[in-house]
């Protein structure tokens, strides 16, 4: 049978990492690998109320076909949130409800990408986007980033090396995997470059509302002017991931293409789930719930940062994210995070080696750590074990610096 599969599947394999991480589902494993929100924070009791209400009020309509674009009331509610919280100026007619923001990424690939088209992205960038786009066989052009986000001069250099770049895919807030947030200045500079080079910007913003220090800078979509920006959002990180409800906001000409392509992909997103989220938004205060989530995640981030300070060797560096779910650590050149993972798993600690987040490979000395999903005591314990693993690994490689720090 495999001979009959399409050639485009050649790039699509179950990753070795995913196989390794299957064991993280054992309860004794301290996992920094996932990107999951903490289930104990879900507003389950509120949701029970909402479900009963929706079925009472809507009756069978809550389970019927709905339009591809999504429930009109939910689109209104999303547009209102984007306009009031993020300073966008979108109408409900410009919102497409998606089956999670992963679908937004997949539809983006389908709408824009042909074989060998060029996609510019941060280096590193979100793994789910790499995989979604890769199915359409584009060429990824990585643009170096620093703690203030994508570096404009590097973007110019990358564009100059392109034939005819189409898309600029970015996660400007509390990025997955790096935890970095773009400065306002960088946002303007990158949008200017996008305008000059005729790029469509895909702004992926699952974490913008998970801010633990200061405020989240304005969305690119709110600063874009004439630059076409497709803004992707989701309820998965601030509500419940199993619902599979995300959305995108796009300029009209682009929006219509997305809607047509979504129709071919799954007709529409679960009607009941759309009704449930809408009813929740109407009856309860999502922002208050997000504030509670942020409290917990902030302490977990702080616990991880404290543990890193005390337990990690000094030759490891890491980012200090102001929000989101992840931080990003860099080991000395030549120290392999994959090897570290194999050893860490023996001690029931898991994380994701950073190499996967670079579409063109390399950077095997990096790793992503999730801090949202484990209670603080487990975080300290896990980081301590991981620190020991890193020291051993360096020592086994003959690096002398490690032992001096121990």
């Amino acid at each position: 049978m495999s001979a009959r599969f399409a050639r485009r599947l050649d790039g699509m394999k179950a990753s070795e990492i995913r196989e390794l991480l299957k064991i993280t589902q054992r309860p004794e494993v301290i996992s920094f690998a996932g990107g999951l929100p903490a289930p104990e924070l879900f507003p389950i009791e509120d949701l029970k109320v909402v479900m009963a209400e929706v079925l009472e009020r809507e009756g069978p309509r809550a389970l019927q076909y709905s339009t591809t674009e999504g429930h009109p009331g939910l689109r209104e509610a999303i547009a209102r949130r984007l306009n009031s919280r993020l300073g966008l100026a979108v109408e409900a007619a410009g919102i497409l409800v998606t089956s999670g923001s992963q679908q937004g990424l997949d539809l983006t690939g389908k709408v824009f990408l042909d074989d060998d088209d060029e996609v510019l992205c941060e280096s590193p960038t979100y793994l789910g986007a790499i995989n979604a786009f890769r199915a359409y066989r584009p060429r990824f052009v990585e643009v170096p980033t620093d703690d203030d986000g994508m570096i404009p001069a590097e973007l110019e250099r990358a564009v100059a090396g392109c034939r005819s770049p189409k898309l600029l895919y970015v996660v400007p807030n509390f990025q997955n995997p790096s935890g970095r947030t773009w400065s306002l200045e960088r946002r303007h500079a990158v949008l200017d470059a996008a305008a000059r080079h005729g790029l469509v910007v895909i702004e992926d913003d699952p974490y913008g509302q998970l801010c633990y220090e200061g405020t989240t800078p304005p969305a690119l979509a709110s600063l874009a002017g004439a630059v076409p920006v497709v803004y992707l959002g989701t309820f998965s990180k601030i509500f419940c991931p199993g619902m599979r409800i995300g959305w995108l906001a796009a300029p009209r000409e682009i929006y219509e293409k997305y809607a047509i392509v979504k129709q071919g992909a799954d007709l529409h997103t679960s009607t009941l789930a759309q009704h449930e989220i809408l009813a929740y938004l109407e009856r309860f205060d999502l922002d208050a719930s997000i504030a509670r989530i942020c409290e917990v995640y902030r302490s977990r981030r702080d616990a991880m940062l404290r543990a890193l300070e005390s337990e990690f060797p000094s030759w490891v560096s890491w980012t200090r994210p102001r929000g989101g779910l992840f931080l990003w650590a860099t080991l000395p050149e030549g120290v392999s995070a994959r090897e570290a993972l194999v050893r860490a798993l023996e001690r029931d600690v898991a994380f994701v080696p950073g190499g996967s987040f670079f579409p063109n490979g390399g950077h095997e000395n990096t790793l992503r750590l999730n801090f949202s999903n484990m209670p603080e005591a487990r975080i300290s314990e896990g980081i301590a074990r991981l620190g020991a693993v890193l020291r051993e690994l360096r020592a086994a490689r003959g690096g002398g610096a490690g032992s001096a720090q121990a």
Partner: protein
Amino acid sequence: MEITIDRDSRAPIYQQIARQVRDLITTGKLPAGFRLPPERRLALALGVSRSTVLIAYQELRADALIHSHVGRGTMVTPPGAAPVHPEVEQDLPWRQLFGAAVSGFQDPLVGDLLRLTERAGAIPLSFGMPAPELLPFAELRDLITGVLDDTGPAALLHSPTEGLTVLRATLAQMMAARGVGCTTDEVLVLSGSQQGLDLAARIFLDPGDAVVVEQPSFIGALQTFRGARARLIGVPTDEHGMRTDVLESVLSRFRPKLIYTLPTFQNPSGAVLPLERRQHLLALSRRYQVPVLEDDPYSELRYEGDPVPALRALDPAGNVLYLSTFSKLLFPGMRLGFLVAPRPVVRQFALARQTADLHSNTLGQWVLDRFMQGGHMSGHMRAVRQAYRRRRDTMDGALRRAAVPGLGWQRPQGGFYFWCRLPEGVRPAALLARAAESGVSYLPGRACFADEPPAEFIRLNFSYPDEEQIREGIARLAGAILRETGHPDTAKVQAASTRPVV
């Protein structure tokens, strides 16, 4: 070689010529080695320009159906001898922004029809939906409101891409009742069967690859395959479904990647593929090593006659990928369907799904599983079968009473649809406008064909409207057709002349 040109048709003349010659070749009426008339002579005979015939021959040559030699003329190419043409020239205008795939999705017809539900007053005979008033709302409501008490946060968390394991096991049990033996890991949960089509296209089709479809076929599948920039190769059907006698020549000539079929109560034709043809189809699939994508949304909706086994049930070789959905049996807004396929295929679907949307709504999967495990399905199915049988009979009766001259149909044994051939001379676009004025909607048959249809059809749905609406809807529709054909009045036309579709 008999070719007729329809100057009123929307199809360009060169396409009409190419299509007819293609059909003559694939049906074996023009044997290999048959010498086609020179371009100039055919042009003269048909009263068209020489360049029109030239383009038609070019198309046929590109499809490797004919070849030309200087001095010997143009001949029909023997099957199998054809050079493989993986990359087919597609005249796609390069556009700055969009991927070429987007141009395959030009016809958002299904979405437009969904939107029509919201228009007041019109009687909808256009949908493919179950009757809302017959669906087990109370049972589902209780399950939905109770599920979180049982599952806790689990029903709100991520779930496996392949689907909840309990639900997959339940579906495997259900398949056993459909005569298909399969294990839990040969089942993959989908967000409706449309997603199965989309994933199948991703997994099997590169641009230019050929896919065999029935003529007519399910509109959503045609759109999806076009979106994948596949070449649709239509195989003619008769009242017993796909003409498997034509299929062999198509397989040998086009080397397709996939055979897509709805063998039971087909959408739109309502036809059921008989057992012998099923076996023939499977034998050909094995001989030419082409997988079969069996789409089976309707087989549980049989109102008379004996069931015919699913292709998947007749296929020990594992060549059949079986797709089904709950959208026709339960609430379609739940968006739940499933695939049954050999493990390597399930694995590829899961990988593709991971990049597409991760997994189906978790809570919905729990609810469906409880619904089936609670034994609610069989009682529900008995009730809807009874109601739909009555609705079908009502539509049949209404069509007979309307007695529109030249309108042909067959009463389906199951499923959701009547497939009616329109009287000669009816202009499809004009009829659609008249029907809209009269307050009745239907699905125009053209949308269901991969290329130019052999005649004009319409698809009428009897599951969604109630019996009163069916009677009124058919009366309105008959009036619209009669006005369009120039007949004076519905009521005055007597003497039924229902010509069966052949």
